[in-house]
């Protein structure tokens, strides 16, 4: 039998125990919130760990939510902002990445470096300036302000990852297309499907920070009609602190969308995070 470094049975058990213990630490607060959001007030306090039963089950919290805040609107806003930003990030970044990967020109390296500044410098530090621009453009309290900021925020890392990926494609592909008389724009469209895995990774790592952001909605679009889900939840939670049913329901509603997205995109996310960090 060849020697592998598979752990021995005892060590494997120890590893399982340690990992299970950590999973419990990671998940129980989340599960506790979701579980209790379906229970009446009394059993939230008396038996926080019990599953809801026929007697204790209630949707009171969700009803309060429904009647006192426009969570459907907030959700739609978040969806619109996130989806639009992602489309723009992908379109603009893939074009720029294509130019950087495909052509030799004098400013190539410098342009790449210029765009890379934004990978490390958080866009938040320019908030004072961003707010001034948005005021001048009359974009405060519109979803456009958020879309523009998030597109900007996503471009640096997206260009970086896509360029690295496109550089690995064989040159013969684009040369053959050129021989066939394809225009450069056409070649770009031919390349796009070939970098699908990288596009998936970019999508996955750009999506979550946009969906979850509080800072820019708080500053650029705090108006009632432009609140995102996170900002709406934050305001609601502040107002209803003592209504445990409502708070737990709001938290549960805010937890579910990212978890859902995560379960769909887990693989791309893992690849994206490692691709972004491993130069």
């Amino acid at each position, binding site marked *: 039998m060849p020697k592998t470094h598979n752990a021995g049975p005892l060590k494997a058990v120890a590893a399982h125990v340690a990992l299970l213990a950590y999973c419990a630490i990671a998940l129980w607060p989340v599960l506790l919130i979701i579980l209790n959001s379906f229970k009446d007030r009394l059993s939230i306090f008396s038996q926080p760990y019990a599953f809801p039963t026929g007697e204790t089950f209630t949707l009171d919290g969700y009803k309060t939510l429904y009647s006192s805040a426009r969570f459907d609107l907030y959700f739609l806003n978040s969806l619109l902002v996130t989806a639009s930003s992602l489309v723009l990030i992908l379109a603009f970044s893939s*074009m720029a990445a294509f130019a950087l990967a495909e052509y030799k020109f004098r400013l190539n390296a410098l342009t790449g470096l210029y765009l890379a500044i934004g990978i490390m410098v958080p866009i938040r530090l320019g908030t004072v300036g961003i707010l001034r621009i948005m005021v001048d453009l009359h974009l405060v309290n519109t979803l456009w302000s958020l879309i523009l900021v998030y597109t900007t925020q996503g471009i640096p890392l997206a260009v970086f990852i896509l360029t690295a990926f496109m550089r690995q494609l064989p040159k013969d592909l684009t040369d053959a297309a050129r021989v066939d008389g394809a225009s450069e724009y056409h070649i770009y469209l031919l390349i796009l499907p070939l970098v699908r895995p990288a596009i998936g990774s970019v999508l996955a790592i750009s999506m979550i920070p946009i969906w979850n952001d509080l800072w820019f909605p708080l500053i650029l679009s705090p108006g009632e009609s432009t609140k995102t889900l996170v900002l709406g939840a934050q305001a609601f939670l502040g107002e209803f602190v003592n209504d445990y049913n409502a708070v737990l329901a709001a938290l549960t509603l805010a937890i579910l969308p990212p978890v859902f997205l995560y379960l769909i995109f887990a693989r791309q996310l893992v690849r994206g995070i490692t691709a972004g960090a491993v130069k």
Partner: protein
Amino acid sequence: MSLRRPRFRTHIPVFLAPAVLIYTAFMIYPLLNSLWLSLTNNAAGQIPSFVGLQNYFTLFAREQWSAPFWNSLRNNAVFFLIHMVVQNPVGLFLAALLNTRIRGTWLYRTAIFVPTILSVVIVGFIWKLILNPAWGISRSLLQFVGLVALDKPWLGLESTALVTLSLISVWQNIGIPMLLFLAALIRIPDELVEAARVDGAGGWKIFWRIQLPLILPTVGIVSVLTFVGNFNAFELIYATQGALAGPNFASDILGTFFFRTFFGYQLQPADPFMGATIAGVMLVIILTGVLIYFYGWQRRMQRVRY
């Protein structure tokens, strides 16, 4: 084909323009604008004029500004150190466990990463509820493990608020170092570890002498990402403690101090000039960290590798 190509290749600027323009307009220009603003003031109630580094001196040395500034900087440093001491080693430990090739690693990895994808605001509120003595979850849990004496309103005490918030942040963000370390550990060729094992090295020794040196570049990346993330943090404190970062500013960090200064709060009117100054200091701190990483750490790493 090169004959067909026009001398000035218009498609290159066309491809680059959208990304470069939007990035310049909403990232680089605002940053420069903010830096410029930090060099001006309208102290006498007149139109803003250039004052050099005076705002920075005010921030560092005038009692009214310097006390909260140094307080938030110190708190931010503690916040960062707790991440470095707890989050990254524990993340590495989890990655090492996942690298032992037991079954179900995918499931463990997915579960441990769940908090990382939640909004910081939501995480803040989850823990605020759990630590709230009114609900009593933390008390019953401590009772269960026999440490009920430790039960305190951790977020409400000056002595414990900052550490508690740091640990909540660690709880949330540990998935990232875990993933990065795991990716690095997986890349280590099996033969290296095998050879050491044949030579009689134990697991501990293999880790310290072979695996850790080989993943040092990742240690650097994780550290600089932690640094940037921590010195730019805001949401967790704002969601759990409010803009005043209580109790009595015990959990105030640069992000919350910046927010309060720029937008004003209760007694203090909004001050865009000092706000921009604080953002300027944050920029310098973050750039210093990034430059130390690139020139100090990564270069040395490359020399080792080749």
